[in-house]
């Protein structure tokens, strides 16, 4: 454990964050964009846990932030998928470029 | 005799560890060797277990239908399942042309991996537990929720309508029944105050929860058995594979060894579910005691703890098998009605009752 420092874990979370950002920028499909968002949220979770573990071992606040982020991510994914399915019903496509009308 | 009773496997494990330490100097190599030894032992145990359960299921089914069951290969048909395994081994591993080959071949692996992962924290006997994790119950329920991914994967990648319908049903079924499983487990967690399976077993030293916990625990035991039968896709909730309507559901396209892996995962899941039920409600490896009758209790103590554990587990397995050969299959709407209209509300109210009981200290 001693060889693996905080910076190792921060590199993972940085890489994951920017992978997510890249995916969010290049993908055009709503579901894959949602996946990219999940990656970004998870990289943030890793950061919270790592800081809690290595810097503030006397508190649990990072852990609580992670729990709340996971909860909110679940709610967000559920709502997003409801929207995607509704969009698919009206437009027969879940491509962001096709969803160009303001009300449907 | 006393030494035999207080015998625990931890001394054997430490002994083996020190012996291996002398033989293998390298730390990394030592860890890998030990992991390999444990893994091989576990795999052999589980394969033998799957063989036994397969034989047991055929015999139980036959006796309940006034038949004899397998009785040709080996004495009393005991080698029938071995013959079946050999046949499955030599069968062609067929992959459909339109299938997504990568996912098609990955799916049986995922399913069997999740089944194997859930075996880890179970306490088989006194002092014999592979991984005494402090969140045992949560770990098992989280790992077993991964099996749905494998089934969805198998159903989608076969690119076959039957498989896809089977996978959709499976998703709806497992995701909904997981809720009542979780709630019925929580009722015992509330009473024990710990998620660790070891602590839960220890808390039942003076009586199993099914006796100590009055009616609410009985209700959650029944809910657990019913919902876990649905979770592992066994009849009467086997409409994921539903031979008559879906020609096999998600495993329509599978043959040979890949199909054997699905089959083995089913039996391991059956074992895990029954072992969890036995651990949580029936006291795991704790012997059966009646307060006041010291002589009787002493006799019960002489039975080894592993026999208690496996006896209870086999009892639950037998009940689940009896479900299979007694009840007709449900329709999908009946299945979801049962969960969302009956099991979930009842188990929610039940958790409140159990919490009240735990606060007031009404249990023994």
């Amino acid at each position: 454990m001693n060889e693996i420092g905080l910076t190792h874990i921060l590199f993972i979370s940085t890489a994951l964050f920017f992978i997510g950002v890249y995916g969010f920028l290049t993908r055009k499909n709503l579901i894959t964009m949602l996946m990219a968002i999940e990656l970004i949220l998870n990289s943030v979770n890793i950061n919270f846990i790592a800081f809690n573990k290595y810097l503030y071992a006397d508190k649990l606040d990072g852990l609580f932030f992670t729990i709340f982020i996971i909860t909110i991510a679940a709610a967000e994914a559920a709502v997003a998928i409801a929207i995607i399915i509704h969009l698919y019903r009206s437009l027969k496509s879940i491509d962001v470029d096709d969803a160009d009308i303001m009300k449907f | 005799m006393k030494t035999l009773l207080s015998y625990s496997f931890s001394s054997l494990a430490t002994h083996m560890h020190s012996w291996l330490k002398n033989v293998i100097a390298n730390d990394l190599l030592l860890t890998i060797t030990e992991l390999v030894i444990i893994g091989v032992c576990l795999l052999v145990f589980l394969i033998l277990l799957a063989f036994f359960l397969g034989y047991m299921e055929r015999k139980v089914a036959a006796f309940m239908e006034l038949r004899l069951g397998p009785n040709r290969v080996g004495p009393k048909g005991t080698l029938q399942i071995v013959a079946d395994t050999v046949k499955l081994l030599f069968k062609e591993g067929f992959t459909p042309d339109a299938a997504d080959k990568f996912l098609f071949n990955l799916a049986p692996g995922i399913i069997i991996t999740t089944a194997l992962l859930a075996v880890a924290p179970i306490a088989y006997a006194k002092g014999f537990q592979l991984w005494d994790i402090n969140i045992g119950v949560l770990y098992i329920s989280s790992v077993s929720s991964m099996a749905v991914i494998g089934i969805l994967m198998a159903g989608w990648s076969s690119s076959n309508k039957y498989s896809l319908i089977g996978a959709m049903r499976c998703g709806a079924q497992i995701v909904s029944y997981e809720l009542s499983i979780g709630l019925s487990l929580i009722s015992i967690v509330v009473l024990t105050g710990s998620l660790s399976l070891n602590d839960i077993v220890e808390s039942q030293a003076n009586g199993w929860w099914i006796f100590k916990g009055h009616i609410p625990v009985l209700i959650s035991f029944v809910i657990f058995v019913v919902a876990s039968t649905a979770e592992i896709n066994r009849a009467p909730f086997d409409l994921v594979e539903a031979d008559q309507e879906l020609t096999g559901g998600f495993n329509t396209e599978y043959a040979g060894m890949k199909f054997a892996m699905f089959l083995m995962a089913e039996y391991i899941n059956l074992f895990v579910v029954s072992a969890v039920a036995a651990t949580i409600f029936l006291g795991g490896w704790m012997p059966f005691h009646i307060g006041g009758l010291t002589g009787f209790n002493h006799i019960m103590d002489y039975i080894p703890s592993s026999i208690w554990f496996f006896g209870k587990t086999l009892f639950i397995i037998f009940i689940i098998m009896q479900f299979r050969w007694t009840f007709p299959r449900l329709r999908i709407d009946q299945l979801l009605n049962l969960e969302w209209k009956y099991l979930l509300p009842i188990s929610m109210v039940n958790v409140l009752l159990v919490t009240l009981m735990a606060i007031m200290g009404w249990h023994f």
Partner: protein
Amino acid sequence: MSASSVIFYIIAAVIIGGGILAITSRKIFRAAVYLLFSLLGIAALYFYLNYEFIAAVQIVVYVGGIVVLIIFSIFLTHASGDEMKRPVLWRAVFSGLATVFAAALTYLFITDHNFVPVGYALDHPVAPSVKNIGLQMLSTTEHGYILPFEVVSMLLLAALIGCIVIAIKIKTKE
């Protein structure tokens, strides 16, 4: 190199490899499966850091919930065997450049900054056990999280109702 660091590098490879494949794979179901591997790797990382509770929660919520939801929506909106369009070249190049530069910048920050744990923290670590988490989650004192807990439960209820309202099929009289 000890066993523990080998395990760490395997976990890191699974997380990053899964993430990269998840956003580049052109078959959408495969992307979801790679995402699953990435999320499982993150759960393994939590196990590695001895945060078992959060790892189990990660598996329950992400693998048992969100990935299953995503796969369900894929079932409902795609046909088996479809491939997605390749991203437009200039968009891929520019977003790739932007992310690489930003990642490099962050990398510089991380390597430059010297993270020093507070001495008090090292001497009095709190075990992230379920008991401690539960006690602190529901306490009303300084580091208690009872208010966010209740707010999040309200949010979940709102999300539940919102999903039903959005996805419900309104029967029109014809």
